[in-house]
């Protein structure tokens, strides 16, 4: 039976519509890209974690994943390349009640933003960092990334990548993150669970979401399309919760270990700051000489 377009529209409402900017659809991501799945998992997690969306600020950098902030219906900031964690730090420190999420890509967070990543982890700033890892700079057309596996091709590694990549969970754990997990965008349910847990956690939480890039990474390396990548994840992912993060290196088309690796407690920056503040207020440690010498 023929249906009117209006009913059609009604039936095609996205289940997460209240958390997405439907007036911006369609989005810019290529067919078979995994970023959309990561966004879906995130919005689902936001509901599952029962967090008031009005209290959440999401910050993105530049790149394909950098566009996430523009499609999520929260207070959202699309900032500069590599600096979303620094921008988000400002929000969290100035407004501790805000739930801060950084949603960005591997190039943005690990290369140009690497320094901010390790320092925010060291400080244990209370934020969730979702790092979509597609092994390549896709927005600029397929350049080598700090996550590109050895020997993989990219437009700026035309003879094969010679740089060892970062092991993101290992870097996060050793820098001080309190929650570290890795999934692929095939593991949508587990990814959602991890994001939910991370959202409920106080402190610097990192969730790595490995995503196919059908347009650049797979094409340049002749790995088929996004669906082939999903099949690859299906056949080659090994789930090992609690695995030592130093064993999580990813090689070119090798086994990928996923799971929740770190879940620990450390006082967050804000907790330490408030503790310091109350001490100062009661003991007046810095009261001496602070008002300038009155003459």
């Amino acid at each position, binding site marked *: 039976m023929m249906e009117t377009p209006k009913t059609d529209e009604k039936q095609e409402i996205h289940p997460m519509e209240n958390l997405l900017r439907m007036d911006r659809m369609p989005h810019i991501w290529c067919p078979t890209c995994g970023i959309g799945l990561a966004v879906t998992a995130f919005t689902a997690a936001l509901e599952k974690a029962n967090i008031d969306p009005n209290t959440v600020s999401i910050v993105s950098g530049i790149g394909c994943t950098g566009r996430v902030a523009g499609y999520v219906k929260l207070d959202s900031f699309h900032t500069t390349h590599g600096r979303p964690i620094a921008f988000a730090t400002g929000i969290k420190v100035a407004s501790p009640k805000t739930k801060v999420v950084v949603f960005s890509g591997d190039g943005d967070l690990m290369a140009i933003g690497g320094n901010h990543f390790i320092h925010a982890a060291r400080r244990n700033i209370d934020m969730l960092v979702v790092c979509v890892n597609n092994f390549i700079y896709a927005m*600029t057309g397929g350049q080598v990334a700090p996550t590109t596996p050895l020997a993989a091709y990219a437009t700026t590694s035309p003879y094969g990548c010679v740089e060892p990549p970062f092991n993101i969970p290992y870097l996060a754990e050793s820098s001080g993150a309190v929650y570290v997990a890795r999934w692929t965008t095939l593991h949508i349910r587990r990814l959602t669970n991890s994001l939910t847990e991370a959202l409920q956690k106080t402190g610097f939480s990192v969730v790595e979401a490995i995503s196919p890039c059908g347009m650049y990474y797979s094409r340049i390396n002749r790995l088929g399309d996004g669906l082939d990548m999903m099949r690859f994840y299906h056949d080659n992912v090994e789930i090992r919760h609690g695995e030592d993060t130093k064993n999580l290196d990813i090689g070119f088309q090798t086994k990928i270990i996923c799971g929740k690796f770190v879940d620990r407690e450390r006082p967050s920056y804000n907790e330490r700051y408030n503790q310091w503040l109350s001490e100062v207020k009661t003991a007046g440690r810095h009261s001496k000489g602070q008002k300038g010498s009155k003459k």
Partner: protein
Amino acid sequence: MKADPRGVLTGVYYIDGDVAAGYGALAAGCKFVAGYPITPSTEAFEAICHRGPQVGAVFIQMEDELGSISAIIGATWSGVKTMTITSGPGYSLMQECIGFGAMLETPFVLLNIQRGGPSTGVPTKTGQADMMQSRWGSHGDYELIAIAPESPQEMFDYTIKAFNLAEKYRCPIMIMSDECVGHMTEKVVIPEADKIEVEPRRLYTGPAEDYLPFKPEPDLVPKMAKAGDGLKLYITGQTHDERGYPVKDAEYKSKYGRRLVDKIRLNKDKIIELKEEGTDNADVIVVSYGISSRVAIKGVELAREKGIKVGTLRLVTVWPFPDEKMSELAKKAKAFVVPEINYGQVVYDVARCAHGRANVVLVPHGGAGVHNPNDIADAIEMAAKEDKKIEGLIEFKTRLEKSVFEGGFKLKE
């Protein structure tokens, strides 16, 4: 000296400006390129990644633009010619080390493919709004040279020129191109190596114990050395004396810091390159650079059809600015018309040098596109008709501005 044939990919090509600049660098003898991907400059870096290893040039993709420019400054001191490639936001990140490079008198070339700004702006479309930044973007006093090519062929030619100027004056050279030229595909002729002049590094050859890394030659440029030659170099970004040792007193600012600006200012006549046409008896002179000067050709044609005497002055080197030439022209012409893809930058220097003798009309464009030649023609006509001397910049209201801000304009996605 002639170019090393290894780096010269002699032949006739149909390539875009970015790639042409990459090939130009290789032809000029560039042996090290560090970069970070940024639209719309990536093709230049990719060209070097593909061709570089075949001709003995090394490239590295660094973790950000700060790393890239630091790496090339280091590589230059190891004795090779170097380049980095970027666009607006990356250029802002490089500002600290541009000043550092100027302080160390390090020759290198920086290719900036400008795009629409400020901030992230319009990454995939053109702009010329980093022009003043290329002159003033780093803290402190320094002078450097900026070149604005207008075609892929010029991207090749002027990249070589940029390397030559860098070696000659021991300073960073900016190639201020833009997305339009960078992504424009045209015929590019790469000549044989023996037809390409390249400037070798001015290396010190005397005894090691007598070497002073910052002792100026008569043209104020010191001879350079490289790491690993047993000279025990000490190079610092602090204000330093001829030995390169940091000095502590403010008076050294004028004693040593001064030469950094003087070596460019006093050699200005040798550096500046202009293309001038029909300015002798022109009423109106169109001053432009880069892609805008190509667009202006049509505007000038249209104005000439109306019988207006129009001359053109193209700034091939934008910095150092041709102060004297501009003052001279201001005495002869009635007005300058300056089309730029920004809301007024180089036009300020045109106005400054006009000294009130000629009116100055800015034809602005915010970026993400080029001028409508009719706007330039209308601005020329307006300037030709104006007989009074007008103080202040005259900002021409373009068709684009009228269409966006007057009447019921609605943005389409």
